């Protein structure tokens, strides 16, 4: 059971400002059904440019609903310039804190607010541009770098807690690690080493496997018109898919075991097993 604060419980059980504003001035929609949470924020401005009404519709867990409710309360009565300065940390603070695994709910709130303001101003969203890093949850490098800087994140796990990036197939962990390093190098803060860096983490494993695949295995297969794709890594099991001429090749199982597996065991980890998906 999650340890939610009384404020989170209150905003979840008695959400404020549920619904949609009529003729809204700004509309922000983020998230999706597949991701497990989504938020639609609408607001209305008065002549002075202050937010007079804000409403939300949210699909998600208790903290997603509470974060949305908190957000609408926070922005009512303030100007857009003030609203723009609200960070996800502010939302979490308003709620008396969120479990760290649930910080992405406050980030979703901030993103919806940004989207709604951009919608009002008729400008594109900065986060919508940029390189797509996490395909599972649709998170770009811009969003990741921003979360790292704003919330002082140091590990891939932190980034997943805040943005969801890396919470699915984990293929992007390596890229997230790079983004953390570069973002923190820029801010000049001290870089804490990844916890448990000594054992081969999944990220490290995937990285090494991809290196060997790219450097040795793929070029060799390509000579015969074949190719190979890394699908997943689960514990010791490496799931791959053979492509091109390999698919119809009767010796493909032999290739997989005697060549691919052997190479990976030699160069990455002695316990790896290669399976075809």
């Amino acid at each position: 059971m999650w340890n939610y604060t009384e404020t989170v419980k209150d905003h979840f059980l008695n959400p404020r400002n549920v619904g949609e504003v009529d003729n809204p001035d700004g509309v922000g929609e983020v998230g999706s059904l597949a991701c497990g949470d989504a938020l639609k924020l609408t607001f209305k401005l008065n002549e002075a440019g202050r937010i007079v009404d804000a409403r939300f519709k949210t699909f998600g867990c208790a903290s997603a609903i509470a974060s949305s409710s908190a957000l609408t309360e926070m922005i009512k009565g303030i100007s857009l310039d003030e609203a723009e300065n609200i960070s996800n940390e502010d939302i979490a603070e308003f709620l008396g804190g969120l479990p760290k695994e649930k910080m992405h709910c406050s980030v979703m709130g901030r993103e919806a607010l940004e989207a709604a303001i951009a919608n009002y101003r008729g400008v594109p969203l900065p986060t919508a541009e940029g390189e797509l890093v996490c395909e599972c949850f649709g998170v770009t490098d811009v969003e990741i770098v921003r979360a790292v800087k704003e919330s002082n994140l140091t590990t891939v796990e932190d980034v997943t807690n805040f943005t969801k990036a890396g919470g699915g197939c984990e293929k992007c962990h390596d890229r997230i690690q790079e983004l953390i390093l570069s973002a923190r190098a820029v801010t000049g803060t001290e870089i804490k080493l990844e916890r448990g860096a000594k054992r081969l983490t999944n990220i490290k494993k995937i990285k090494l496997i991809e290196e060997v695949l790219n450097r040795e295995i793929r070029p060799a297969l390509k000579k015969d018109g074949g190719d190979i794709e890394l699908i997943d890594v689960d514990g010791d099991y490496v799931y791959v898919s053979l492509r091109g001429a390999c698919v119809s090749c009767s010796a493909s199982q032999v290739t997989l075991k005697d060549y691919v597996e052997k190479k990976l065991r030699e160069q990455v980890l002695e316990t790896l097993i290669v399976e075809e998906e």
Partner: protein
Amino acid sequence: MDKVIYLDNNATTMVAPEVVEVMLPYFAELYGNPSSMHSFGGQGGKGVAAAREQVASLLGAEPDEIVFTSCGTESDSTAILSALYSFPEKHHIVTTRVEHPAVKNLCANIVSMTGHFHRITKLPVRPDGTIDLSLYKESLTDDTAIVSVIWANNETGVIFPVVEMAEIARSRGILFHTDGVQAVGKIPIDLSRTPVDFLSLSGHKLHASKGVGVLYVRRGTPFVPFMVGGHQEKGRRGGTENVASIVGLGKACEVAAQNLDAENSRVKELRDKLEKGILKIVPKSILNGHETERLPNTSNISFEYVEGEAILLHLNQYGICASSGSACSSGSLEPSHVLRAMGIPFTAAHGSIRFSLSVFNTEDEIDFVLEKVPPIIENLRAMSPFWKSGG
């Protein structure tokens, strides 16, 4: 907590009053060690021996086929690793995509644990959670060291045809293990007619205490212990016996045998009332898992366009305890691997709720839940950006 309506019996169960009663003397009065030479310790030994007979009787087994362990997880690990150690020349395991983490994660890490390479076949399931026996037959090879399949699924309650599957493995000379943790006490089991070599069960799922389990090991099955130490359990599991819990488990098995009819009539009727009621009243609610090839106590229902954790917390306000296969409630970001293996779309998996009943539930409780669930779902849907009323 005021009133609790406990519909989470696949997670754990209440220790039955008659079980508590037989356990109590073994804490303060009969605390001797069964291995001791004095008759004071011998009383503990007698309790364990009686429990062994009670467990054997529920399973249709012989008392010497019962090995007491610390939990279902230990039993699962013991069975699978024993088979691998017994047949070091074989390097293939057949299992399914819907196993409990006790088997799933053991298999994922089997190489690090055994130091040997093993190929793992994870059999797929149909959308209703049932298994295709022809795929199972095809998967067996001369290299297969063991088959390990869950008898009844903890999330959906779907029952696999374990009797038939065990017979097929036997005909190929392959060892067969089943995780019977959810099946024992809920469906009739007769191991004298079912050629499984290993079966795991866990005390806390059948109204005994946590921290005690059993591994059934058929006579003549090659066996390598997992816990090595003293000569307890005839050398099959070292460690001083958890006497009070074992005695309690024995009693729980005796009670389970008496309650088996009630499970399949009264409990099933309550489950059906709950399930049919919800499916009828709540639009866009879907049953996950085969309707009849299923435990009598389990109902896994998806509510589209709402998220499971939010439902659970609303239920919690009324003291109603259930579980969800949603990502948020598990602490990961992806919904349950069992529902995903069944091809349940993410949209429905995120909103899945498991209700699991026991003989202690009453009709009043079910009526109360039936009254509370529909407005909770309606409320959350009114808040959901994806829900269009009426559709």
